[in-house]
């Protein structure tokens, strides 16, 4: 009896140890509109514990095909996202659309490429991802840990969008729009016409302090056009899975305007960068999570940009 249990335990251990191919637990998703599913990424920095599951990612199911929007911040997150699709439908995942280059949105790309998806992104995504590939692998090694980082092969788009592209998923059309430099120089949004749902990527931050890695002026300049998208609801890159549009962008607009106005005032007053950064957008500090992680960096970037006005 004891021996049987021992054998069973040993057998179980032998079977259990080399099991990277175990059935992946699907990501939790919410159907925010008919056929539109979103997974909530934690409002946090990437850690080995959260596996880079810190951005909202989702998928849209048509009559013929599925489009995935962003792939998550690691291979396991990408695999769990694919499992979430498979829990809902057997239709082919024909497209993976990247809203921009950042690792929390692209590090699961290879999972979808292997599943046969065509990866689409902004016309500037290949160059942006290419220039940062080594840097991301190195910096994400510290954030994700070596084990998860080693699994990642940075995978760029198969095809790109210069301005706009309409994709028919069968019974519903999604519209991909490439924006001018804002959050990054390769921001792309996805609009589902059928349910009037806008996937804004990181052009929209809610709760999570906005992150500036492109152009503050460009971002502010394009918010009116973004607000003109006739969506009923929006999926922000970070924050809740769904929010009413366009009022969802009010807080971010206020933050970006405050940052620009504070930095412009400092530049006018001749305040040097080092002294301007700690004061910038201070009135926003209690309104955002991760404010101290991102606001000083945003202020530095804003100063370097706006002093050339």
């Amino acid at each position, binding site marked *: 009896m004891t021996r049987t249990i021992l054998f069973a335990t040993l057998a179980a251990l032998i079977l259990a140890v080399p099991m990277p191919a175990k059935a992946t637990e699907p990501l939790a998703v919410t159907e925010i509109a008919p056929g539109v599913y979103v997974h909530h990424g934690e409002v946090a920095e990437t850690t080995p514990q959260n596996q880079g599951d810190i951005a909202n990612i989702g998928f849209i199911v048509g009559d013929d095909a599925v489009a995935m929007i962003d792939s998550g911040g690691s291979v396991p997150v990408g695999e769990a996202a694919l499992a979430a699709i498979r829990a809902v439908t057997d239709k082919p995942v024909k497209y993976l659309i990247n809203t921009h280059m950042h690792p929390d949105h692209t590090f699961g790309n290879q999972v979808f490429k292997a599943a046969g998806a065509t990866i689409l992104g902004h016309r500037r995504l290949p160059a942006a991802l290419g220039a*940062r590939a080594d840097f991301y692998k190195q910096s994400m090694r510290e954030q994700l840990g070596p084990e998860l980082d080693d699994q990642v092969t940075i995978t760029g788009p198969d095809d790109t969008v210069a301005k706009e592209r309409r994709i028919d998923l069968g019974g519903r059309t999604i519209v991909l729009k490439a924006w001018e*430099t804002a959050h990054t120089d390769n921001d792309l949004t996805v609009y589902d016409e059928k349910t009037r749902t806008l996937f804004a990527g990181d052009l929209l931050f809610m709760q999570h302090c906005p992150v500036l890695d492109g152009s503050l002026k460009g971002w502010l300049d394009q918010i009116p056009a973004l607000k003109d998208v006739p969506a009923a609801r929006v999926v922000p890159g970070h924050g809740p899975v769904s929010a009413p549009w366009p009022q969802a962008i009010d807080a971010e607009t206020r933050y970006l305007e405050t940052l620009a106005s504070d930095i412009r005032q400092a530049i006018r007053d001749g305040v040097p960068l080092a002294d301007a950064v700690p004061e910038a957008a201070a009135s926003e500090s209690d309104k955002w999570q991760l404010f101290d992680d991102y606001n000083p960096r945003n202020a530095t970037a804003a100063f370097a940009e706006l002093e050339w006005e």
Partner: protein
Amino acid sequence: MAGNPMVGRSAAGRRTAIALLSALAIGGAGLARAETAMSPEQKAAEADSAWPELKPDLFGDRPLIDGTDTVSIEAPKRATDPAVVPVKLSFDPKMEVRKVTLVIDENPSPVAATFDFAEGAGVAELSTRVRVNAYTDIHAVAETADGKLYVTKTFVKAAGGCAAPAAKDPEVAAREMGKMKMREFSSDDPSLHEAQLMIRHPNNSGLQKDQVTLLYIPAHFITDLSVEKGGKALFTMTGGISISEDPSFRFKYRADDAGPFHAKASDTEGQVFEKTFDSGQS
């Protein structure tokens, strides 16, 4: 990081290349160290170890005098953006500082810049922005007119500033390259003037790989800069890849020459950017 092709057309370029090569040798040891996980404090202690090798390379066996106010340095303890780390150098007006070398110990090319101050320029303060690639000491070594060397240092926590891509928007960076701007600031002290020179330039570190060709993108940075006021030299700089994109130099000086500022910069591709600024013009 290795295999960076350096363009050494000018003397400054060669000097940077030499500094880079010596840094690569030091960096090799750094890679071995990095294999074991270290606390920030241990890393900080380790970071100090580049200096004993850098010091003789840069200054031979000349003594460096520490603990005076001849030169002081200010930088944030923790950088908000490792690619844009503000550094301020101040000089004791009683000492006639004629040259200062800014060394970022742990960077791939540790000598960020060397500034030569003209006789009578009375440069009292100089601020710039640098890239910081690892937790590091930043040393400033000032040479006075009598040939003595004075040293000071500060420690900065930052990482990845050199390997990070230069431009957030490369298309704009390419279009704007070479633009220059000069700002003058009012000062409470009438004997001390303050101005800031800004140059649009990617100041590319050459530490990023082209993912298609798998070759490093050649470094492209400003090697030499001279700044004059009213036809008389204020200072010159020889610089390297550690100076941030869109180099900025803000300085306080005592020279009272009337007349416009003039700045001339040349880069690793042999391009020369030159501008005369009428007073107050930016």
